[in-house]
């Protein structure tokens, strides 16, 4: 993880910004993935065409 951080371009402050931005994007992607996959457990019970 430290090696990954060290491999990022720019000064340390910029690297921190990049890491934070990447984490935010990953969390948002994870949220939408969970929402989409949630239909496997429970779609809300609506009946209708597939």
């Amino acid at each position, binding site marked *: 993880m430290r090696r990954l951080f060290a491999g990022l371009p720019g000064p340390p402050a910029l690297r921190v910004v990049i890491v934070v931005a990447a984490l935010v994007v990953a969390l948002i992607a994870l949220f939408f993935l*969970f929402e989409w996959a949630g*239909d496997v*457990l*429970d*779609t809300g*019970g609506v*009946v*209708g065409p597939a």
Partner: protein
Amino acid sequence: MIGLGALILAFLGYQLVGTNFLTARSQDLAQQTVEEHFVAAQEEIEVVDTLPSSPVDDNGTTQQYPPADEPPVVHYREPKPEDGQAFGVMTIPKIEAEQVLFEGVDRATLKKGPGHMPWTPLPGQPGNAVVSGHRTTYGAPFFDLDQLQPGDEIYVETALGTHTYVVRDSFIVTPTAVEVTDPKRGAWLTLTTCNPKFSARERLIISAELVDGPNFAYALAEREFVPAAAS
């Protein structure tokens, strides 16, 4: 492997626990807005019909209903709620469930609580009112719906008043079995949810009949005397 396990745990935690908090907050907020809706909608309740001056039964025989010395049977209608609006409260004593109902069955609406299919009559109205809800996520309002048996009561409070339903049947269908939403004579409430628990493979259907409420007499008279094609 550890990362994958953590991801699955996070997924289950979010779906089975985290979403419940989101829905609980929506339900708390809706408790107030539904009261406001009741007050506003009660001013717009209208008498749609008085039934029937000279009804005919299924055999085409003219009937006198209600008897001449009784008041006419009245059909009351409340204004249609807007999409996503909280419009009623459903209580199911058997499973200790009390849920604010919302108009619509889109994903966003069902995250707030059980939703009413907009193309079916509102609960308390003649016909077949259909309400869908989550079984295991987003507050799991219908988690114990499989415990309902014929004879169990369901109460729905709307701007019009309290409508009492009694469960007549429960059964399981495929997710595409739209026939459960078909119109019916009389006044019915159909609840739909995912089945089995933690799977969306099937739908559990609860069918309940109106036995008391502002439109009960009208629904009864309509069921007995008005040909289905005319209802």
